[in-house]
Protein backbone atom coordinates (compact mmCIF):
# COMPACT_ATOMS: atom_id res chain seq x y z
CA UNK A 1 0.00 0.00 0.00
CA UNK A 2 2.78 2.41 -0.81
CA UNK A 3 1.35 5.58 -2.28
CA UNK A 4 2.90 6.65 -5.53
CA UNK A 5 5.31 9.46 -4.88
CA UNK A 6 6.32 11.96 -7.47
CA UNK A 7 9.98 12.11 -8.31
CA UNK A 8 11.28 15.58 -7.76
CA UNK A 9 14.89 16.30 -7.01
CA UNK A 10 13.99 19.80 -5.88
CA UNK A 11 12.75 18.11 -2.71
CA UNK A 12 16.41 18.31 -1.69
CA UNK A 13 15.83 21.99 -0.93
CA UNK A 14 13.41 21.01 1.83
CA UNK A 15 16.06 18.79 3.38
CA UNK A 16 18.78 21.44 3.32
CA UNK A 17 17.93 23.05 6.72
CA UNK A 18 18.12 19.66 8.40
CA UNK A 19 21.38 18.90 6.58
CA UNK A 20 22.95 22.19 7.63
CA UNK A 21 21.84 21.84 11.25
CA UNK A 22 22.99 18.23 11.59
CA UNK A 23 26.13 19.05 9.63
CA UNK A 24 26.97 21.60 12.28
CA UNK A 25 26.07 19.69 15.45
CA UNK A 26 26.84 16.16 14.26
CA UNK A 27 28.99 15.80 11.14
CA UNK A 28 31.65 18.38 12.00
CA UNK A 29 32.08 17.09 15.59
CA UNK A 30 32.20 13.53 14.24
CA UNK A 31 34.96 14.45 11.81
CA UNK A 32 36.83 16.13 14.67
CA UNK A 33 36.57 12.90 16.66
CA UNK A 34 38.04 10.97 13.72
CA UNK A 35 40.85 13.54 13.52
CA UNK A 36 41.59 13.19 17.27
CA UNK A 37 41.70 9.42 16.96
CA UNK A 38 44.47 9.63 14.37
CA UNK A 39 46.58 11.95 16.50
CA UNK A 40 48.04 11.78 19.97
CA UNK A 41 46.55 14.86 21.56
CA UNK A 42 48.48 16.32 24.50
CA UNK A 43 46.64 19.59 24.59
CA UNK A 44 44.30 20.84 21.92
CA UNK A 45 46.98 22.97 20.25
CA UNK A 46 49.65 20.29 20.29
CA UNK A 47 49.09 16.94 18.66
CA UNK A 48 51.18 14.37 16.89
CA UNK A 49 50.06 12.27 13.95
CA UNK A 50 50.05 8.61 14.96
CA UNK A 51 47.86 7.11 12.24
CA UNK A 52 46.12 3.90 13.18
CA UNK A 53 48.24 3.22 16.25
CA UNK A 54 45.39 3.70 18.74
CA UNK A 55 43.07 1.55 16.66
CA UNK A 56 45.56 -1.29 16.68
CA UNK A 57 46.09 -0.84 20.42
CA UNK A 58 42.37 -0.90 21.25
CA UNK A 59 41.45 -3.72 18.88
CA UNK A 60 44.33 -5.94 20.00
CA UNK A 61 43.53 -5.61 23.70
CA UNK A 62 41.67 -8.50 25.27
CA UNK A 63 39.85 -6.05 27.52
CA UNK A 64 38.10 -4.54 24.50
CA UNK A 65 36.84 -7.89 23.23
CA UNK A 66 35.69 -8.96 26.70
CA UNK A 67 33.74 -5.72 27.14
CA UNK A 68 32.41 -6.09 23.62
CA UNK A 69 31.11 -9.59 24.38
CA UNK A 70 29.48 -8.47 27.63
CA UNK A 71 27.88 -5.44 25.96
CA UNK A 72 26.48 -7.49 23.07
CA UNK A 73 25.10 -9.97 25.60
CA UNK A 74 23.53 -7.13 27.60
CA UNK A 75 21.93 -5.59 24.50
CA UNK A 76 20.62 -9.00 23.47
CA UNK A 77 19.01 -9.55 26.89
CA UNK A 78 17.53 -6.05 26.80
CA UNK A 79 16.03 -6.56 23.33
CA UNK A 80 14.71 -10.03 24.14
CA UNK A 81 12.98 -8.83 27.31
CA UNK A 82 11.88 -5.28 26.51
CA UNK A 83 10.53 -5.84 22.99
CA UNK A 84 8.19 -8.79 23.77
CA UNK A 85 7.25 -7.18 27.09
CA UNK A 86 6.50 -3.87 25.37
CA UNK A 87 4.32 -5.63 22.78
CA UNK A 88 2.43 -7.59 25.46
CA UNK A 89 1.78 -4.47 27.52
CA UNK A 90 0.70 -2.41 24.50
CA UNK A 91 -1.71 -5.13 23.35
CA UNK A 92 -3.21 -5.48 26.82
CA UNK A 93 -3.62 -1.73 27.36
CA UNK A 94 -7.10 -0.19 27.09
CA UNK A 95 -7.57 1.68 23.80
CA UNK A 96 -10.19 4.16 24.96
CA UNK A 97 -11.68 5.61 28.10
CA UNK A 98 -10.24 7.34 31.11
CA UNK A 99 -7.75 4.56 31.83
CA UNK A 100 -5.78 5.43 28.68
CA UNK A 101 -4.59 8.68 30.23
CA UNK A 102 -3.75 6.97 33.52
CA UNK A 103 -1.69 4.29 31.75
CA UNK A 104 0.14 6.71 29.47
CA UNK A 105 1.00 9.17 32.24
CA UNK A 106 2.23 6.47 34.64
CA UNK A 107 4.25 4.76 31.94
CA UNK A 108 5.89 8.01 30.89
CA UNK A 109 7.26 8.68 34.37
CA UNK A 110 10.45 6.55 34.21
CA UNK A 111 11.35 8.17 30.88
CA UNK A 112 11.28 11.59 32.54
CA UNK A 113 13.58 10.90 35.48
CA UNK A 114 16.97 12.59 35.07
CA UNK A 115 19.44 9.87 34.08
CA UNK A 116 21.80 10.57 36.95
CA UNK A 117 18.95 9.92 39.40
CA UNK A 118 18.05 6.47 38.02
CA UNK A 119 20.96 4.64 39.73
CA UNK A 120 20.29 6.52 42.97
CA UNK A 121 16.64 5.48 43.07
CA UNK A 122 17.57 1.92 42.16
CA UNK A 123 20.26 1.65 44.81
CA UNK A 124 17.49 2.35 47.33
CA UNK A 125 15.09 -0.10 45.68
CA UNK A 126 17.69 -2.86 45.47
CA UNK A 127 18.70 -2.43 49.10
CA UNK A 128 15.09 -2.80 50.17
CA UNK A 129 14.73 -5.81 47.86
CA UNK A 130 17.87 -7.35 49.33
CA UNK A 131 16.57 -6.94 52.88
CA UNK A 132 13.07 -8.23 52.16
CA UNK A 133 14.43 -11.24 50.28
CA UNK A 134 16.78 -11.95 53.17
CA UNK A 135 13.84 -12.21 55.58
CA UNK A 136 12.41 -15.07 53.53
CA UNK A 137 15.81 -16.67 53.29
CA UNK A 138 16.80 -15.76 49.74
CA UNK A 139 20.27 -14.34 49.30
CA UNK A 140 20.27 -11.43 46.85
CA UNK A 141 23.71 -9.88 46.98
CA UNK A 142 23.46 -7.50 44.06
CA UNK A 143 26.77 -5.78 44.78
CA UNK A 144 29.05 -8.78 45.08
CA UNK A 145 27.37 -11.58 43.16
CA UNK A 146 27.87 -11.14 39.40
CA UNK A 147 24.67 -12.96 38.45
CA UNK A 148 22.64 -10.88 40.88
CA UNK A 149 24.21 -7.66 39.60
CA UNK A 150 23.10 -8.64 36.11
CA UNK A 151 19.56 -9.21 37.36
CA UNK A 152 19.69 -5.79 39.00
CA UNK A 153 20.86 -3.89 35.91
CA UNK A 154 18.41 -5.66 33.62
CA UNK A 155 15.55 -4.89 36.05
CA UNK A 156 16.66 -1.26 36.16
CA UNK A 157 16.81 -0.97 32.37
CA UNK A 158 13.45 -2.72 31.90
CA UNK A 159 11.96 -0.28 34.40
CA UNK A 160 13.55 2.70 32.68
CA UNK A 161 12.95 1.98 29.01
CA UNK A 162 10.14 -0.54 28.36
CA UNK A 163 7.63 2.34 28.27
CA UNK A 164 9.27 3.67 25.11
CA UNK A 165 8.60 0.36 23.33
CA UNK A 166 5.04 0.37 24.74
CA UNK A 167 4.35 3.89 23.41
CA UNK A 168 5.60 3.09 19.93
CA UNK A 169 3.62 -0.18 19.71
CA UNK A 170 0.54 1.41 21.24
CA UNK A 171 0.50 4.29 18.75
CA UNK A 172 0.53 1.87 15.83
CA UNK A 173 -2.09 -0.44 17.40
CA UNK A 174 -4.57 2.44 17.65
CA UNK A 175 -4.38 2.91 13.87
CA UNK A 176 -5.95 -0.48 13.12
CA UNK A 177 -9.46 0.19 11.75
CA UNK A 178 -12.35 -1.37 13.69
CA UNK A 179 -13.38 -3.17 10.48
CA UNK A 180 -10.33 -5.44 10.76
CA UNK A 181 -11.40 -6.67 14.17
CA UNK A 182 -14.99 -6.96 12.97
CA UNK A 183 -13.99 -9.22 10.07
CA UNK A 184 -11.81 -11.29 12.36
CA UNK A 185 -14.69 -11.72 14.81
CA UNK A 186 -17.03 -12.83 12.00
CA UNK A 187 -14.42 -15.34 10.82
CA UNK A 188 -14.19 -16.67 14.35
CA UNK A 189 -10.50 -15.87 14.66
CA UNK A 190 -8.89 -16.59 18.00
CA UNK A 191 -7.21 -13.84 20.06
CA UNK A 192 -3.84 -15.24 19.03
CA UNK A 193 -4.80 -15.12 15.31
CA UNK A 194 -5.87 -11.50 15.67
CA UNK A 195 -2.50 -10.73 17.21
CA UNK A 196 -0.48 -12.79 14.73
CA UNK A 197 -2.23 -11.69 11.50
CA UNK A 198 -3.55 -8.21 12.26
CA UNK A 199 -1.70 -6.57 15.13
CA UNK A 200 1.83 -7.86 14.71
CA UNK A 201 2.13 -7.02 10.97
CA UNK A 202 0.82 -3.55 11.76
CA UNK A 203 3.52 -3.03 14.36
CA UNK A 204 6.43 -4.26 12.28
CA UNK A 205 7.70 -0.86 11.16
CA UNK A 206 7.41 0.62 14.62
CA UNK A 207 9.18 -2.38 16.06
CA UNK A 208 12.18 -1.77 13.81
CA UNK A 209 12.42 1.71 15.27
CA UNK A 210 11.98 0.40 18.81
CA UNK A 211 14.69 -2.20 18.23
CA UNK A 212 17.08 0.37 16.77
CA UNK A 213 16.53 2.88 19.58
CA UNK A 214 16.83 0.30 22.34
CA UNK A 215 19.85 -1.28 20.68
CA UNK A 216 21.86 1.91 20.28
CA UNK A 217 21.08 3.19 23.76
CA UNK A 218 21.66 -0.11 25.58
CA UNK A 219 24.88 -0.69 23.65
CA UNK A 220 26.24 2.68 24.81
CA UNK A 221 24.83 2.51 28.36
CA UNK A 222 27.10 4.23 30.84
CA UNK A 223 25.63 6.53 33.51
CA UNK A 224 23.22 4.04 35.05
CA UNK A 225 25.57 1.06 35.21
CA UNK A 226 28.57 3.08 36.35
CA UNK A 227 26.86 4.74 39.28
CA UNK A 228 25.06 1.56 40.35
CA UNK A 229 28.04 -0.75 40.75
CA UNK A 230 30.93 0.80 38.77
CA UNK A 231 31.23 -2.16 36.43
CA UNK A 232 31.66 -4.57 39.31
CA UNK A 233 31.79 -7.06 40.90
CA UNK A 234 35.35 -7.25 39.50
CA UNK A 235 34.78 -6.62 35.79
CA UNK A 236 31.55 -8.56 35.38
CA UNK A 237 29.53 -5.54 34.24
CA UNK A 238 32.32 -3.61 32.50
CA UNK A 239 30.65 -2.54 29.26
CA UNK A 240 32.06 -0.68 26.28
CA UNK A 241 30.34 2.48 27.52
CA UNK A 242 32.12 2.30 30.87
CA UNK A 243 35.55 1.73 29.29
CA UNK A 244 34.92 4.82 27.20
CA UNK A 245 33.57 6.87 30.07
CA UNK A 246 36.64 6.13 32.17
CA UNK A 247 38.97 7.32 29.42
CA UNK A 248 36.96 10.50 28.93
CA UNK A 249 36.98 11.18 32.67
CA UNK A 250 40.76 10.66 32.68
CA UNK A 251 41.09 13.21 29.83
CA UNK A 252 42.76 10.50 27.76
CA UNK A 253 41.16 11.91 24.72
CA UNK A 254 42.82 10.26 21.72
CA UNK A 255 42.16 6.69 22.87
CA UNK A 256 38.64 7.77 23.84
CA UNK A 257 38.05 9.20 20.36
CA UNK A 258 39.40 5.98 18.85
CA UNK A 259 36.95 3.96 20.90
CA UNK A 260 34.16 6.34 19.94
CA UNK A 261 34.81 5.79 16.24
CA UNK A 262 35.01 2.01 16.68
CA UNK A 263 31.76 1.90 18.71
CA UNK A 264 30.04 4.11 16.17
CA UNK A 265 31.01 1.77 13.33
CA UNK A 266 29.79 -1.26 15.30
CA UNK A 267 26.42 0.37 16.06
CA UNK A 268 25.89 1.45 12.46
CA UNK A 269 26.79 -2.02 11.18
CA UNK A 270 24.44 -3.82 13.59
CA UNK A 271 21.64 -1.32 12.92
CA UNK A 272 22.11 -1.88 9.21
CA UNK A 273 21.72 -5.62 9.80
CA UNK A 274 18.46 -5.10 11.74
CA UNK A 275 17.17 -2.82 9.01
CA UNK A 276 17.96 -5.26 6.20
CA UNK A 277 16.58 -8.20 8.14
CA UNK A 278 13.29 -6.45 8.81
CA UNK A 279 13.07 -4.88 5.36
CA UNK A 280 12.97 -8.40 3.94
CA UNK A 281 9.41 -8.55 5.22
CA UNK A 282 7.68 -5.85 3.27
CA UNK A 283 5.35 -3.84 5.38
CA UNK A 284 2.77 -1.18 4.72
CA UNK A 285 3.22 0.33 8.11
CA UNK A 286 3.27 4.08 8.09
CA UNK A 287 5.76 4.50 10.88
CA UNK A 288 8.54 2.42 9.46
CA UNK A 289 7.63 2.77 5.84
CA UNK A 290 10.77 4.57 4.77
CA UNK A 291 13.11 2.08 6.24
CA UNK A 292 11.17 -1.10 5.68
CA UNK A 293 9.92 -0.67 2.14
CA UNK A 294 13.02 -0.55 0.04
CA UNK A 295 12.19 -0.54 -3.62
CA UNK A 296 8.90 1.27 -3.51
Amino acid at each position, binding site marked *: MVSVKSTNNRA*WFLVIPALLLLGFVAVIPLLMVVD*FSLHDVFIITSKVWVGLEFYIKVLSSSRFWESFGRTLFFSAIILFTEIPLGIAIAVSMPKKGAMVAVCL*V*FMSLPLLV*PWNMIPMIWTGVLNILEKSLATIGIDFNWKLNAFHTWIAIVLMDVWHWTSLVVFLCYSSLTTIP*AAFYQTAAIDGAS*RWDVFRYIELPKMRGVLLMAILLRFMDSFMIWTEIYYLNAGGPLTWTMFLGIDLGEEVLAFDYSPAATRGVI*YFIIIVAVSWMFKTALAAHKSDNKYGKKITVDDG
Partner: protein
Amino acid sequence: MKSKSDYLKHSPISRLPAIIYIIFLFLPFLLLVYISFHVTIHENRWTSVHGSSTYVGQLTLLNYLHVFQNSALTASMINSVTFVLLNILITIPVALLAAYAFSRYSFKGDKHLFFGFLVLRMTPPVVMVLPVFLLFSALDLINTPFAIALAHCLFNVPISIWVLESFISAIPKELDETAFLDGYSIFRFFIRILIPLLAPGIAVASFFCFMFSWVEVAFARILTVTQGKPITMAISALFSYITDVGLVTAMTVLSIIPGALMIYFVRNHIAKGFIIRQVS
Protein backbone atom coordinates in the same frame (compact mmCIF):
# COMPACT_ATOMS: atom_id res chain seq x y z
CA MET B 1 -21.20 0.97 14.39
CA LYS B 2 -19.43 -0.80 17.18
CA SER B 3 -15.90 0.24 18.01
CA LYS B 4 -13.06 -2.22 17.75
CA SER B 5 -12.80 -2.99 21.42
CA ASP B 6 -16.29 -4.43 21.30
CA TYR B 7 -14.97 -7.16 19.05
CA LEU B 8 -12.21 -8.08 21.43
CA LYS B 9 -13.22 -9.71 24.65
CA HIS B 10 -11.27 -8.15 27.49
CA SER B 11 -11.24 -10.27 30.55
CA PRO B 12 -9.24 -8.89 33.49
CA ILE B 13 -6.63 -11.53 32.71
CA SER B 14 -5.95 -10.06 29.26
CA ARG B 15 -5.14 -6.76 31.00
CA LEU B 16 -2.68 -8.46 33.32
CA PRO B 17 0.60 -7.48 31.59
CA ALA B 18 -0.29 -3.79 31.69
CA ILE B 19 -1.46 -3.96 35.31
CA ILE B 20 1.62 -5.82 36.56
CA TYR B 21 3.88 -3.46 34.63
CA ILE B 22 2.30 -0.36 36.14
CA ILE B 23 2.66 -1.79 39.64
CA PHE B 24 6.32 -2.58 38.91
CA LEU B 25 6.86 0.96 37.59
CA PHE B 26 5.14 2.43 40.59
CA LEU B 27 7.16 0.89 43.42
CA PRO B 28 10.42 2.87 42.95
CA PHE B 29 8.37 6.07 42.68
CA LEU B 30 6.63 5.22 45.91
CA LEU B 31 10.04 5.08 47.58
CA LEU B 32 11.10 8.35 45.91
CA VAL B 33 7.96 10.25 46.93
CA TYR B 34 8.06 8.73 50.43
CA ILE B 35 11.63 9.94 51.03
CA SER B 36 10.87 13.37 49.62
CA PHE B 37 8.30 13.98 52.36
CA HIS B 38 10.63 13.01 55.19
CA VAL B 39 13.52 14.67 56.96
CA THR B 40 16.64 12.74 55.99
CA ILE B 41 19.42 14.82 57.47
CA HIS B 42 20.48 15.41 61.05
CA GLU B 43 19.99 18.86 62.38
CA ASN B 44 23.02 20.88 61.42
CA ARG B 45 24.24 24.41 61.86
CA TRP B 46 22.07 25.71 59.07
CA THR B 47 18.82 24.40 60.51
CA SER B 48 19.64 25.49 64.05
CA VAL B 49 20.33 29.02 62.87
CA HIS B 50 16.98 29.02 61.14
CA GLY B 51 15.36 27.77 64.27
CA SER B 52 13.70 24.64 62.98
CA SER B 53 14.11 21.59 65.12
CA THR B 54 13.53 18.45 63.15
CA TYR B 55 14.52 14.81 63.55
CA VAL B 56 15.39 12.24 60.92
CA GLY B 57 12.33 10.38 59.70
CA GLN B 58 9.88 13.14 60.54
CA LEU B 59 7.07 13.71 58.04
CA THR B 60 7.68 17.11 56.50
CA LEU B 61 7.14 19.51 53.61
CA LEU B 62 10.48 21.19 54.35
CA ASN B 63 12.28 19.45 51.46
CA TYR B 64 9.96 21.07 48.95
CA LEU B 65 10.22 24.39 50.74
CA HIS B 66 14.03 24.16 50.59
CA VAL B 67 13.91 23.52 46.84
CA PHE B 68 12.14 26.83 46.31
CA GLN B 69 14.42 28.65 48.75
CA ASN B 70 17.49 27.44 46.85
CA SER B 71 18.13 29.91 44.06
CA ALA B 72 20.43 27.50 42.18
CA LEU B 73 17.59 24.96 42.00
CA THR B 74 14.88 27.39 40.92
CA ALA B 75 17.21 28.89 38.33
CA SER B 76 17.94 25.40 37.01
CA MET B 77 14.23 24.79 36.46
CA ILE B 78 13.98 27.95 34.38
CA ASN B 79 17.12 26.95 32.45
CA SER B 80 15.76 23.48 31.72
CA VAL B 81 12.41 24.75 30.52
CA THR B 82 14.16 27.38 28.38
CA PHE B 83 16.52 25.05 26.56
CA VAL B 84 13.87 22.38 26.01
CA LEU B 85 11.48 24.95 24.49
CA LEU B 86 14.30 26.41 22.37
CA ASN B 87 15.19 22.93 21.22
CA ILE B 88 11.59 22.22 20.18
CA LEU B 89 11.43 25.57 18.36
CA ILE B 90 14.58 24.74 16.38
CA THR B 91 13.87 21.06 15.82
CA ILE B 92 10.24 21.05 14.69
CA PRO B 93 10.41 23.51 11.73
CA VAL B 94 13.62 21.94 10.40
CA ALA B 95 12.29 18.40 10.83
CA LEU B 96 8.91 19.32 9.37
CA LEU B 97 10.41 20.46 6.06
CA ALA B 98 12.59 17.37 5.77
CA ALA B 99 9.76 15.05 6.80
CA TYR B 100 7.52 16.61 4.16
CA ALA B 101 10.14 15.99 1.49
CA PHE B 102 10.64 12.36 2.54
CA SER B 103 6.90 11.74 2.74
CA ARG B 104 5.79 13.32 -0.54
CA TYR B 105 8.67 13.04 -2.99
CA SER B 106 11.18 10.52 -4.05
CA PHE B 107 14.48 12.09 -4.92
CA LYS B 108 18.02 10.99 -5.57
CA GLY B 109 19.44 9.26 -2.50
CA ASP B 110 16.38 9.75 -0.31
CA LYS B 111 16.48 6.31 1.31
CA HIS B 112 20.17 6.58 2.11
CA LEU B 113 19.69 10.07 3.46
CA PHE B 114 16.87 8.92 5.73
CA PHE B 115 19.03 6.18 7.20
CA GLY B 116 21.94 8.64 7.28
CA PHE B 117 19.98 10.93 9.58
CA LEU B 118 19.25 8.01 11.87
CA VAL B 119 22.93 7.06 11.82
CA LEU B 120 23.82 10.44 13.31
CA ARG B 121 21.55 9.56 16.22
CA MET B 122 23.94 6.64 16.89
CA THR B 123 27.05 8.68 17.66
CA PRO B 124 28.18 7.98 21.24
CA PRO B 125 27.40 11.24 23.12
CA VAL B 126 30.31 10.84 25.55
CA VAL B 127 32.78 11.21 22.67
CA MET B 128 30.88 13.95 20.93
CA VAL B 129 30.90 16.31 23.90
CA LEU B 130 34.51 17.50 23.50
CA PRO B 131 34.34 18.48 19.81
CA VAL B 132 30.93 20.06 20.38
CA PHE B 133 32.40 22.00 23.30
CA LEU B 134 35.35 23.21 21.19
CA LEU B 135 33.07 24.16 18.32
CA PHE B 136 30.59 26.00 20.53
CA SER B 137 33.23 27.81 22.56
CA ALA B 138 34.81 29.04 19.31
CA LEU B 139 31.42 30.58 18.55
CA ASP B 140 31.03 31.89 22.10
CA LEU B 141 27.88 29.90 22.84
CA ILE B 142 28.98 28.23 26.08
CA ASN B 143 26.96 28.69 29.30
CA THR B 144 23.74 29.52 27.49
CA PRO B 145 20.58 27.40 27.27
CA PHE B 146 20.81 27.99 23.51
CA ALA B 147 24.00 25.89 23.35
CA ILE B 148 22.30 22.89 24.94
CA ALA B 149 19.22 23.37 22.74
CA LEU B 150 21.42 23.34 19.65
CA ALA B 151 23.50 20.33 20.74
CA HIS B 152 20.40 18.27 21.49
CA CYS B 153 19.30 18.65 17.87
CA LEU B 154 21.84 15.89 17.25
CA PHE B 155 19.38 13.27 18.48
CA ASN B 156 16.05 15.12 18.35
CA VAL B 157 16.06 16.13 14.67
CA PRO B 158 16.41 12.54 13.33
CA ILE B 159 13.68 11.23 15.65
CA SER B 160 11.35 14.14 14.82
CA ILE B 161 11.82 13.66 11.09
CA TRP B 162 10.83 10.03 11.49
CA VAL B 163 7.76 10.76 13.65
CA LEU B 164 6.53 13.65 11.48
CA GLU B 165 7.12 11.70 8.27
CA SER B 166 4.68 9.02 9.41
CA PHE B 167 2.09 11.60 10.41
CA ILE B 168 2.38 13.46 7.08
CA SER B 169 2.07 10.17 5.18
CA ALA B 170 -1.24 9.64 6.96
CA ILE B 171 -2.64 12.76 5.28
CA PRO B 172 -3.97 12.10 1.76
CA LYS B 173 -1.72 13.51 -0.94
CA GLU B 174 -4.75 14.90 -2.82
CA LEU B 175 -4.92 17.60 -0.19
CA ASP B 176 -1.57 19.06 -1.27
CA GLU B 177 -2.42 18.79 -4.96
CA THR B 178 -5.76 20.57 -4.54
CA ALA B 179 -4.11 23.33 -2.53
CA PHE B 180 -1.38 23.85 -5.11
CA LEU B 181 -4.00 23.92 -7.91
CA ASP B 182 -5.83 26.57 -5.90
CA GLY B 183 -2.69 28.67 -6.15
CA TYR B 184 -1.26 28.16 -2.68
CA SER B 185 2.48 28.66 -2.41
CA ILE B 186 4.30 25.95 -0.51
CA PHE B 187 4.82 28.39 2.36
CA ARG B 188 1.15 29.32 2.60
CA PHE B 189 0.19 25.66 2.25
CA PHE B 190 2.31 24.78 5.27
CA ILE B 191 0.96 27.60 7.45
CA ARG B 192 -2.69 27.45 6.45
CA ILE B 193 -3.33 23.76 5.78
CA LEU B 194 -0.58 21.35 6.74
CA ILE B 195 0.41 22.59 10.20
CA PRO B 196 -3.15 22.79 11.58
CA LEU B 197 -3.85 19.27 10.28
CA LEU B 198 -0.55 18.06 11.62
CA ALA B 199 -1.02 19.41 15.14
CA PRO B 200 -1.19 15.91 16.70
CA GLY B 201 2.03 14.88 14.97
CA ILE B 202 3.77 18.06 16.07
CA ALA B 203 2.57 17.43 19.63
CA VAL B 204 3.94 13.88 19.64
CA ALA B 205 7.26 14.93 18.08
CA SER B 206 7.54 17.72 20.66
CA PHE B 207 6.97 15.21 23.43
CA PHE B 208 9.80 13.04 22.10
CA CYS B 209 12.10 16.09 21.94
CA PHE B 210 11.10 17.03 25.45
CA MET B 211 11.68 13.54 26.77
CA PHE B 212 15.15 13.02 25.30
CA SER B 213 16.28 16.57 26.03
CA TRP B 214 14.97 17.01 29.57
CA VAL B 215 16.91 14.11 31.08
CA GLU B 216 20.13 14.32 29.05
CA VAL B 217 23.34 14.58 31.07
CA ALA B 218 26.50 14.51 28.93
CA PHE B 219 26.01 17.64 26.78
CA ALA B 220 24.19 19.47 29.55
CA ARG B 221 27.23 19.03 31.80
CA ILE B 222 29.98 20.19 29.48
CA LEU B 223 28.12 23.06 27.84
CA THR B 224 27.28 24.77 31.13
CA VAL B 225 30.59 25.41 32.84
CA THR B 226 29.69 28.23 35.18
CA GLN B 227 26.08 29.15 34.55
CA GLY B 228 22.92 28.12 32.74
CA LYS B 229 22.92 24.77 34.57
CA PRO B 230 19.88 22.56 33.90
CA ILE B 231 18.02 20.48 36.50
CA THR B 232 20.14 17.37 35.95
CA MET B 233 23.33 19.26 36.84
CA ALA B 234 21.73 21.14 39.72
CA ILE B 235 20.80 17.77 41.23
CA SER B 236 24.34 16.45 40.75
CA ALA B 237 25.67 19.52 42.55
CA LEU B 238 23.58 18.63 45.62
CA PHE B 239 25.69 15.54 46.30
CA SER B 240 28.45 16.29 48.75
CA TYR B 241 30.03 15.00 51.97
CA ILE B 242 26.66 15.24 53.73
CA THR B 243 23.92 14.91 51.13
CA ASP B 244 20.41 16.02 51.96
CA VAL B 245 18.72 13.05 50.28
CA GLY B 246 15.30 14.51 51.05
CA LEU B 247 16.13 17.63 49.07
CA VAL B 248 17.49 15.55 46.15
CA THR B 249 14.34 13.41 45.99
CA ALA B 250 12.02 16.42 46.30
CA MET B 251 13.84 18.05 43.39
CA THR B 252 13.60 14.84 41.36
CA VAL B 253 9.86 14.56 42.00
CA LEU B 254 9.38 18.18 40.91
CA SER B 255 11.48 17.60 37.77
CA ILE B 256 9.15 14.81 36.62
CA ILE B 257 5.95 16.87 36.82
CA PRO B 258 6.27 19.02 33.64
CA GLY B 259 6.81 15.95 31.46
CA ALA B 260 3.90 14.10 33.06
CA LEU B 261 1.66 17.10 32.34
CA MET B 262 2.91 17.18 28.77
CA ILE B 263 2.10 13.52 28.10
CA TYR B 264 -1.32 14.10 29.63
CA PHE B 265 -2.03 16.80 27.05
CA VAL B 266 -0.76 14.82 24.05
CA ARG B 267 -2.28 11.47 25.14
CA ASN B 268 -5.14 11.58 22.64
CA HIS B 269 -2.77 12.37 19.80
CA ILE B 270 -0.62 9.37 20.57
CA ALA B 271 -3.79 7.30 20.35
CA LYS B 272 -5.65 9.05 17.54
CA GLY B 273 -3.04 10.81 15.47
CA PHE B 274 -3.48 8.58 12.48
CA ILE B 275 -7.22 8.65 12.10
CA ILE B 276 -7.21 10.76 8.94
CA ARG B 277 -5.87 8.02 6.76
CA GLN B 278 -8.48 5.53 7.86
CA VAL B 279 -11.21 7.87 6.62
CA SER B 280 -9.75 8.14 3.16
